[in-house]
């Protein structure tokens, strides 16, 4: 048997977290260094994973071991062009978060790093699982550490935010669990690939629709889509910097990933039927999220709401692809839309991750995130301004940076299938430019210098090191998108041809 790379990626963080648990808590330096070192193992392995991925071969690196044979539950993991970029993203953001936190987290260090590694395992687990029960277990495991990260290291309203996040996600999970059981009873398997091939409830559309909506709810809350999004601003604002980064960068992607890996392959008929509803919610998320962002005066909350808008692009691309299921000549547009959606997931991870780090940088110094409190900082902290500008421009979809391609492909794919949705959705582009340039750049950096910040220090080396890789990817994928689209496109084309 080959080297079980996915298992190693997933469980090295768990092992690391258990070792951290055994360390004496006053050895903070050791705990920090050890945790960062541990997180490098999955990072390097995930790069190897991407390099070795045969993009035309579908699910790879599979491992299949019986787990609970009585009910046919297996330990089944695997990866393809959809999950590999996300696994890499998870590893990258976790390492950067741990590195950044090793400078900023001062209390309960041991617990923090323990929970963070545990969280990493949960996220990897979701992206590699090909068995429903395994998927569900990892899905839930991810919740607990994040609950504590917000609840213990968060801001003033951390308890409200943490419990809201936990309960809201749990409501969705319960619905999903019921659907999973239903699918098992109908198909006799918990295997995601097999179940999708069997098309659960193929003989009964209504039952299928029920299961569809149950799973939809779980993922839509996580994405989050309008109107299930209000846990997000609270959780983001209260979470510590690294928590926000992971929350926005990865946890939201778990929901999107679920749509691609489970909902679309398993219920194409229902998805096709309900695609207009999903598309409407996606367009609302895009425009409404952008407009509500524009109304914010808290920098962190602004970026939190911008996530609602940006994840709307992902859902729009997906909904458009589902919309066109069954029409044979739409494959190109569908593939483009889905490529855009997956690319957008990755981009949102690096861009919004960077933006949350940047919020952390200023908050550590100024102890405020009120946009009205700043002004004219560009000449005082030019480095910070430069990085914020690049991240902001990437976020507003400036061509030449990664964010553009995701949006372009989503709109291109959607336009050919459902032009009206795309035409309304592009309004979001204008508002995104407005809130990034007007609210963030102008209020914080431009105009007359606010003397209150005369002692403000520019970015420290550790902060620069945290942001360089993210900015690097924004530029790299912005200038040369085939690097990532090649991988995604093969997986999406394969997925779509399977549904035809």
């Amino acid at each position, binding site marked *: 048997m080959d080297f079980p790379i996915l298992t190693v990626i997933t469980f090295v963080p768990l092992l690391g977290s258990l070792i951290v648990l055994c360390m004496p808590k006053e050895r903070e330096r050791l705990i920090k260094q050890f945790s960062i070192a541990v997180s490098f193992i999955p990072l390097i392995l995930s790069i190897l994973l991407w390099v070795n991925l045969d993009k035309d071969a579908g699910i790879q690196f599979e491992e299949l071991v019986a787990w609970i044979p009585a009910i046919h539950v297996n330990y089944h993991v695997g990866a393809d062009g959809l999950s590999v970029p996300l696994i890499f993203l998870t590893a990258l953001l976790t390492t950067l978060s741990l590195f950044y936190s090793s400078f900023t987290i001062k209390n309960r260090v041991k617990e923090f790093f323990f929970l963070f590694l545990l969280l990493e395992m949960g996220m990897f687990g979701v992206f590699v699982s090909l068995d429903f029960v395994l998927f569900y277990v990892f899905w839930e495991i991810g919740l607990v550490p994040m609950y504590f990260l917000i609840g213990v290291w968060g801001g003033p309203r951390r308890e409200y935010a943490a419990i809201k996040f936990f309960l809201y996600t749990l409501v969705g999970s319960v619905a999903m669990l019921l659907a999973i059981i239903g699918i098992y009873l109908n198909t006799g398997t918990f295997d995601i690939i097999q179940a999708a091939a069997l098309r659960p409830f193929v003989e009964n559309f209504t039952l299928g629709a029920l299961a569809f909506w149950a799973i939809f709810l779980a993922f839509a809350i996580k994405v989050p889509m309008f109107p299930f999004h209000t846990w997000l601003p609270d959780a983001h604002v209260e979470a510590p910097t690294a928590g926000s980064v992971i929350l926005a960068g990865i946890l939201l992607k778990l929901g999107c990933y679920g749509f691609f890996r489970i909902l679309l392959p398993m219920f194409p008929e229902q998805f096709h039927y309900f695609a207009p509803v999903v598309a409407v919610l996606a367009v609302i998320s895009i425009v409404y999220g952008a407009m509500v962002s524009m109304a914010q005066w808290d920098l962190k909350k602004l970026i939190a709401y911008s996530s609602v808008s940006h994840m709307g692009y992902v859902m729009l691309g997906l909904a458009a692809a589902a919309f066109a299921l069954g029409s044979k000549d739409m494959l190109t547009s569908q593939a483009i839309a889905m490529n855009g959606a997956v690319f957008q997931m990755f981009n949102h991870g690096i861009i919004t991750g960077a933006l949350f780090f940047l919020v952390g940088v200023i908050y550590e110094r100024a102890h405020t995130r009120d946009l009205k409190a700043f002004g004219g900082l560009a000449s005082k902290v030019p480095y910070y301004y430069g990085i914020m500008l690049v991240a902001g421009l990437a976020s507003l979809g400036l061509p030449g940076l990664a964010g553009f391609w995701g949006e372009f492909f989503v709109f291109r794919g959607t336009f050919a299938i459902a032009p009206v949705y795309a035409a309304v959705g592009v309004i979001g582009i204008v508002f995104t430019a407005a809130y990034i340039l007007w609210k963030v750049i102008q209020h914080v950096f431009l105009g007359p210098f606010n003397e209150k910040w005369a002692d403000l220090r520019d970015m420290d080396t550790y902060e620069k090191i945290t942001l360089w890789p993210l900015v690097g990817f924004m530029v790299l994928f912005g200038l040369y998108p085939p690097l990532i*689209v090649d991988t995604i496109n093969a997986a999406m084309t394969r997925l779509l041809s399977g549904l035809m």
Partner: protein
Amino acid sequence: MTELFDWVRLIPLFPFLAFAIILLFTQRNQKLSTYLAWVGIGLAWILGWTIAFRAMADPHVLEEGFRAPIFAIPTGRGLLELGFQVDALTTAMLFMVPFVCLMIFIYSKGYMHGDPRYSRFFAYVSLFATGMLGLIVSDNLLLLYIFWEVMGLCSYLLIGFWFEKPSAMKAGLKAFITTRIGDVIMFLGMLLLYSTTGTLSFHEIFSEETLHFLKETMVWVPLVGTVPVAPVIAILLFGGAVGKSAQFPLHVWLPDAMEGPTPVSALIHAATMVSAGVYLVARMFPIFALLPETASMSVVAFIGGFTALFAATIALAQDDIKRVLAYSTISQLGYMIAALGVGAYVAATFHLITHAFFKALLFLGSGSVIHGAGTQDMMEMGGLRKKMPITFWTFLVGMLALAGVPPFAGFWSKDEILAHAFEEFLHKGVASWPFFVWLVLSLGALLTAFYMARQVFLTFYGETRSHHMHAHESPKVMTYPLIALAVFAALLGFAGVPEEFPVLGPLFGHNFFHHVVGHAYPATPLNWGVMGLSVLLALTGLFLGWVVYGRNPLKHGQPDPLTKLGPMYTLLRNKYYIDEFYSKVIVRPAVALATLLFRFDNSWVVDPFVNLVGKVGVWLSDLGRIFDLNIIDGIVNGVAAVTAWFGKILRLTQTGKAQNYLLVAVLTVLLLLGLYLYLPM
């Protein structure tokens, strides 16, 4: 041959490298940053001109184009190929763009001297040059759009270059958002084109099959109904041009953009970026002209013609030396757009090129004036002719070119537009767009000559109207570029002299420009009447300008004679109050709506509903607790109580005396015996 054209890939790369190196490494070293920027644009210029001149001599490249692919992005089972190209239109642009850029880069060394962000300026303008050069060599609409947006970014950064000034900061934002509205419309046009034809590559779009296909295809548009697809694509793409080339109603950003350093105004907001909108329409011209009887051409003609006249009227009443030129730019871009709207493809491109030279010259000249005089207000200037002779003479050349006085460059290009519009009008009659275009552009020519005369007389003639002005000529690094540009502003027109024109026509290669760019289009016939009229109008404008401002130069404290126009003057001076209108009708409602939606989200509906669900949950569990306490526990306790009660009663029987137990046993036996005897078996 092929090898040389392959190098077109490097043209945008040189300034990009300069940008990256300056930004990352040499910010502290101003001198090195300057030279890096110069080397970047200089190499692009040398290569650009080498390629352009080689292409001019190569009919194959001019007619078919040469393509140099860069990379391809997979789209399902297909590919989206991106690349660069050299063709006729690119060749014309390659002649203009890198040279004007180079002149302005050189000039900037003097103008930006001593600025704390000097190096960053050169980084930004180098990135801008990347954008503009990339735009003109793109072989497909997507790549064009990418460079288009990169230029938009640079424009934003450079308008707000002195961002400490709130007016500069606001102007930058206004420029970005306003043009982005146009860009979004263009984006939709691009999506429609791409999803209709399946390609964005120019040579594929303009192939016969695709054009034929577009001609036949219909599309359903909300509110309009089913219409041919080509004009819809054209009008949507035109939205981008309206934003970028500052045409009505999206023109409002360009005058404010004058907050940027003057070389930026010359480079971005006069010569290159703003003409990208015209370039876009010219580039996509086969789509616009595919169904000439539909709205695509008339919309372009109307917007261009209207803007040309409208902006010229505003220019009359501005006192800021740069704002006059800004409105003049809007007006001249209107000429080009209107020219395309009446089908004068070659004339429009020609005017684009000549205008770039003389408008860059005028802006740099005004920058030299500002640099020397220390003010932008023409009402404070006067008499600068003697103190700044080189600036004056070069400015005069630019002014005559703009006013359309023969034989300066602007005369030939503007006249070709008018002649073409007139020719079309003769074909189509008075109730046609060409007639409208010819009429407003002729009127505009009069106004143009007048406001330029006003500018020259106010700035350079008479006596200074400010006591604290110590004007001086600018350094050589600034005046040499002026001279170089003035040469082109004076002579470039000869590249496009009509073929039939006596002596000059044959002398300058039978309308050389038309041979380069217009192989697919018939030449505009020479029309002496139109030409005579346009010269007459230009001279009349100049004469009127002299009457009002030149004969008796304005003295200190004297009001502008135009104030005698009364409310008309106020209206023009306030630019028809369009800014105020937009602020009240669009900007504020949008912001208010955003705030309203946030309240809806956070305080009124969405989140309160979530919290309500949470509260109902808590309340239900409270209810459960009460139910539990009183009913469930009650039942349990009740059962216990009943059991206890029974126990209490039964306990009475448990006496502990053997006699009582024996008695019970005997009685039981007797009872069972009785039952046995009496019950029927």
